[in-house]
Structure formats: structure tokens, C-alpha cells
């Protein structure tokens, strides 16, 4: 922190770089001092990176029929297979697919669906929230009442409804391809409300501030004011919700997939893997269920912890 004399004396550095500003910021300072935040960030980073680079890391491509050997089915973790002698880090499932590889590929699907759904919900929610907060009147009433009605349905139900309708309109041969996109839209649609609410609330506060009046005064259009002035100032609560929503979206996707209305077995997500695995739990092949479940738990938990920390760090009242 440099002192700024009232009369403009030349400061040493005219303009700090964005990185410098970030490294000096309170956020980074509190981050360094919170072990929970550091650990969960590292865990999230490892999981995300291993999902992104799954084709490079995974020992086998579990969805390439050519590389599968049915003889490898039900190999327990770290034990050589009775027939082939192959050893698998986390064992194999009924079709001889390497569980470790399926988890890496499954996490890709889970993360992709989660991130895309949150982005979709974010864009929709921010747009509607900004408009209803800034314009007000009937526009606001209609948007926010729609949001209220939406909230009275459990989001899983909304997602299942959309999924069901979409399924009815898609030809059978495209269903597997469409499933992922329908999942994204279904989860996103059930999630936009909280973005809209928070953005609307923050917009109501910001639009009364004098810098917005100063912009109106010089004749800037409502579009420019919303986008250039208000939007940057309502983004920090959005960031918090987006992080927590990501954890929820991943779980929602897993739930839908577990229930059989989500990602298809040809493109399994963590939820699909858990659904497949639970069939073998009582016959003793516990690893097929356990490892995907633990991965899902770790992923959702660390994203959530990160979101919690972010909320506290960005809330000036808790500091």
C-alpha cells in the first residue's frame, strides 16, 4: 500500500499490472491464510486437470471396444487377473473396463455438463436479473414471479420434466448425442433463479449509486449503463453462487444419470458409473461403485468448500 498525498505528487508506479493488483489484494492474502481454501483449490485443480487430460493419463480408453477384453471383467484393484494376469490400479468392471480410466473419462462428462449448465444458468440469470433490476415495473414483476413459480418445483423435477419432453422429440438414433445437451439445458434451467435474484438485488443497490446517475446524466443508453457500469459491479456475488452451483450441478447431473435419465452408458458420467456400480455392490465387487462415488464426493466437496470460502472472503461484513 502506498500513501497518496492529497496534492498530486508523482507516485513511483503509474499503473500496476493486473497480476500485481491481484497479488496485493486482500482476497489473495486471505486465500494464502486459509488452509481449507488452499487444499480444496489444489484438489479441484488436480481433478479438473486429470479430467481434461484424461486421454493422456488414462491407461486404456474404456470406450474403445477394440482395447477391451471381457476376460478382464471383475478384476479387483491392485490384484492380477486370474485369466490374463493383467493388474488394474482400481480394478475393472463387468465388461473388463479399467475403473480408473472410466472415472477419468466420467469426470470429463460430469465436469463438462456441470460447467456448461452453470454457464447457461449464469448467462440467463444475469441477463434477466440485470433487466428486471434496472428496468423495474412490469418487466420485473413478470420475470421475478416466473422465478418464484420455478422455485416451487424441486430442480430435479424440472430437469426430469425437460429431459422427458426433449426425449419425446428426439429421434432414437440421436438420443445418446442429445442426452448431454438436454442435461445441460435441464440443469441450467432449474438453476438460473438464484443468479437472477442475486443480480437483481445487487443491481437495485448499484443503480441508485451516483456513478450510475452520472452516466445517465451524460445520456448513456440503459444498455450501456447495464453492461458497462452495473454488470462489473454485481459480478462478485455471482462468482460465489457460480462456484456453489457448480458443485450442485455436478451432483444434479449425477443424480439424473443415476436415475437413468442422464448421461447414456456409451458416454458415462460419474453418476452413470455409480448406477452401474451399485448393481454389483452386493455380489462383492465393491470397487466398481466405491471409486466413482468417492471421486464425485471429493469433487463436489472441494468445489463447495471453495465456494464457501469465496463467499466469506468477498463478504465485507464477515471480515
Amino acid at each position: 500500500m502506498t500513501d497518496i498525498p492529497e496534492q498530486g505528487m508523482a507516485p513511483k508506479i503509474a499503473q500496476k499490472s493486473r497480476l500485481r493488483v491481484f497479488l496485493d489484494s486482500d482476497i489473495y492474502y486471505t486465500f494464502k491464510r486459509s488452509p481449507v481454501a488452499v487444499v480444496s483449490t489444489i484438489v479441484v485443480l488436480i481433478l479438473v486437470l486429470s479430467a481434461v487430460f484424461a486421454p493422456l493419463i488414462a491407461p486404456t480408453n474404456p470406450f474403445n471396444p477394440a482395447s477391451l477384453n471381457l476376460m478382464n471383467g471383475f478384476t479387483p484393484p491392485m490384484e492380477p487377473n486370474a485369466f490374463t494376469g493383467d493388474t488394474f490400479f482400481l480394478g475393472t468392471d463387468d465388461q473388463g473396463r479399467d475403473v480408473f480410466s472410466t472415472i477419468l473419462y466420467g469426470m470429463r462428462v460430469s465436469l463438462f455438463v456441470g460447467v456448461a449448465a452453470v454457464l447457461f444458468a449464469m448467462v440467463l440469470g444475469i441477463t434477466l436479473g440485470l433487466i428486471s433490476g434496472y428496468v423495474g415495473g412490469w418487466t420485473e414483476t413478470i420475470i421475478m414471479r416466473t422465478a418464484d413459480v420455478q422455485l416451487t418445483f424441486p430442480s430435479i423435477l424440472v430437469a426430469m420434466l425437460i429431459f422427458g419432453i426433449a426425449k419425446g422429440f428426439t429421434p432414437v438414433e440421436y438420443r445418446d448425442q442429445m442426452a448431454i445437451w438436454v442435461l445441460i439445458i435441464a440443469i441450467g434451467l432449474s438453476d438460473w433463479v438464484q443468479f437472477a435474484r442475486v443480480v437483481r438485488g445487487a443491481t437495485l443497490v448499484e443503480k441508485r449509486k451516483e456513478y450510475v446517475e452520472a452516466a445517465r446524466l451524460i445520456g448513456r443508453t440503459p444498455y450501456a449503463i447495464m453492461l458497462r457500469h452495473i454488470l462489473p459491479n454485481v459480478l462478485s456475488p455471482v462468482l460465489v453462487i457460480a462456484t456453489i452451483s457448480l458443485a450442485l450441478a455436478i451432483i444434479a447431473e449425477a443424480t439424473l444419470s443415476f436415475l437413468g435419465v442422464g448421461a447414456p452408458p456409451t458416454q458415462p458420467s460419474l453418476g452413470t458409473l455409480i448406477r452401474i456400480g451399485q448393481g454389483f455392490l452386493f455380489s462383492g465387487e465393491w470397487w466398481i461403485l466405491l471409486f466413482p462415488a468417492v471421486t464425485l464426493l471429493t469433487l463436489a466437496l472441494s468445489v463447495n468448500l471453495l465456494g464457501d470460502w469465496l463467499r466469506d472472503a468477498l463478504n465485507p461484513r464477515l471480515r
Partner: protein
Amino acid sequence: MSDAVLSIRNLSVEIPTRTGVVKPVDGVSYDISAGEILGVVGESGAGKSMAGNAVIGLLSPPAHIAAGEIWLNGTRIDALKGEAMRRLRGKQIGMVFQDPLTSLNPLLSIGDQLTETMLTHLPISRSEAEKRAVAALEEVGIPGAVERIDSYPHEFSGGMRQRVVIALALCAEPSLIIADEPTTALDVSVQAQIIALLKRLCRDRGTAVMLITHDMGVIAEAADRVAVMYAGRLAELGTVRDVLTQPQHPYTAGLMASTPLASAGKARLHQIEGAMPRLDNVPEGCAFHPRCEYAQDKCRAAPAPQISDSHAACWFPLIAEKVS
């Protein structure tokens, strides 16, 4: 310690931050006697409220008292903790803040708040407390006190609310009132009423008052003595007449001269160049020297002298003819 109700000796408050320790209050000493109003005046960041908060034990962590003593009626209170401090605060110290809404409970009628406070701190019956509550409201000039005793804070106007707060602060018969910017949120005409009320009540009851404000005009109207603070330190201390008409510290003199009132008829206002230093960057020596037109080498090298013989903490106090 003498006959002073409140006696502060060398009080320092420190806040550890990640860039180092800052001292919002640095070696401040003053007394307030019974029936006396001490005006504590300074610009924002001067540490005037922080000193008041230290007295009532309301420093928000990590701020803490680092050195010095606070004596209230002959008892040392700066080390009191928790329950003991809370009891003392309610019984012996009354508080009036800038925003009356923050010191009133919105869910309780003002009658309930007054009687509860009295029952907690005074050995009286409920019916007696209720009688006294009405009397207290009448005393602070609330018309129709009997009917309004069951009203809630939001049913009063800003000025009336501040009167209720004053009644609440006085009802446990404290020996000290700390009023932190009590009239800043009020209109001029209401401000005059509240100041007059505070003055009258304290004089009648012999209550000592610490009146914290940034407004020299309010000080002139209300205070008996005035303590001028700058960058956490005491710059000048004396009777209000001495300090305002013959300021010895260049900061006080500059502050007085920069009010539009004092510059009446002049095209430009007197200007103190620069701004109060940030707490993490208080200059060596006298904290005011970079802005002082009379500063000399000594001011840059040695901290300003403690207020003792002269009433200004200044190596070269102004003498009367210099300011006129």
C-alpha cells in the same frame, strides 16, 4: 485520581495489520470532571471515535488498548473484560451515537427499553421504573410522553429518536456520557435543540460528557473544554474559549481559518495543504510537520512535546498576535 470522572492517561490503541501495526490513538491523555462537557474534535481518521470506543470497551478486534490507563471515578477500567465491562457500561457510562436507530431496539417499545435499562441497573420496582420512564421522556422534551411511551422507535422522527436515545443514555443515571457525533445526521434546527438539551441535562445532573464531533461550530456551542486530535495524537487541549479564539497549535489555527465562517467576506478560504496522513504512514517527529507552515528542523526530528504547561503539543506554539 483527582476529582475527574474520567481520566485517560497515555492511552494508545493499536491495530495489527498485515503491513504492520497502526496506532489510531497514540499517547492521549485527558480528564473530564463532573458536569463538564469535553469536546473531542478532529477530522476523519484523527482517532477521536476510537478513543471513545476504548473507554467503553467497544474496540472491535483486532484493535486493542496497547498502553495507558483509563480511570472512571477512581477505578481503573481499561483491563476490565466481558461481564464486568458490560455492567459498568450500562450503569456508569451512557452512550449516544450518530444514528439513533442503531442504539434503539426496533422490536421493543421505547417504554420497555427505558424500564428494562433502569431495572437492570437501579434498585427500583417495575412501577417506579415505569413512572421514571415517563418522567425521562418528558425531561428530554417529547410531547405527550404518557401516550407515546408505548410507541416503537420507527414511529418517531429523527430528532425525537435522538431525544429518546438521550433519555435512554441518562436513565440509569450514569456519571459519564459519550456522545459520538450525536447531531451529525440531524438538520440544523433540530441540531440546535439536541445540543441545548444535552447541555441542560448534563449540567443539571452533573454528568460528565465526552462530545465527539468533527464540527467546530458544535464544539463552540456546547463544550466547556476542547481536545483537538490529529493523526491519533492530541494536538491541543484547553478551554473552548482559549482554543477557539487563540489557538496555539498551527493545525487548530488552520482548521479554524478554513471554515467558511471564519473567512467571511474573503474570496478564498484559508487552506491547509495536503491531508491527514494515513495511519500506516504517520510522519516522523510531529505528525503535522509536512503540512505546517511554521515547521522547522526540530519538528521533523523530535515528536511534539506532551501537553503539559502549554496547551498545545507543538514545539513552536503560536502566540496570540500571530493568528489574529
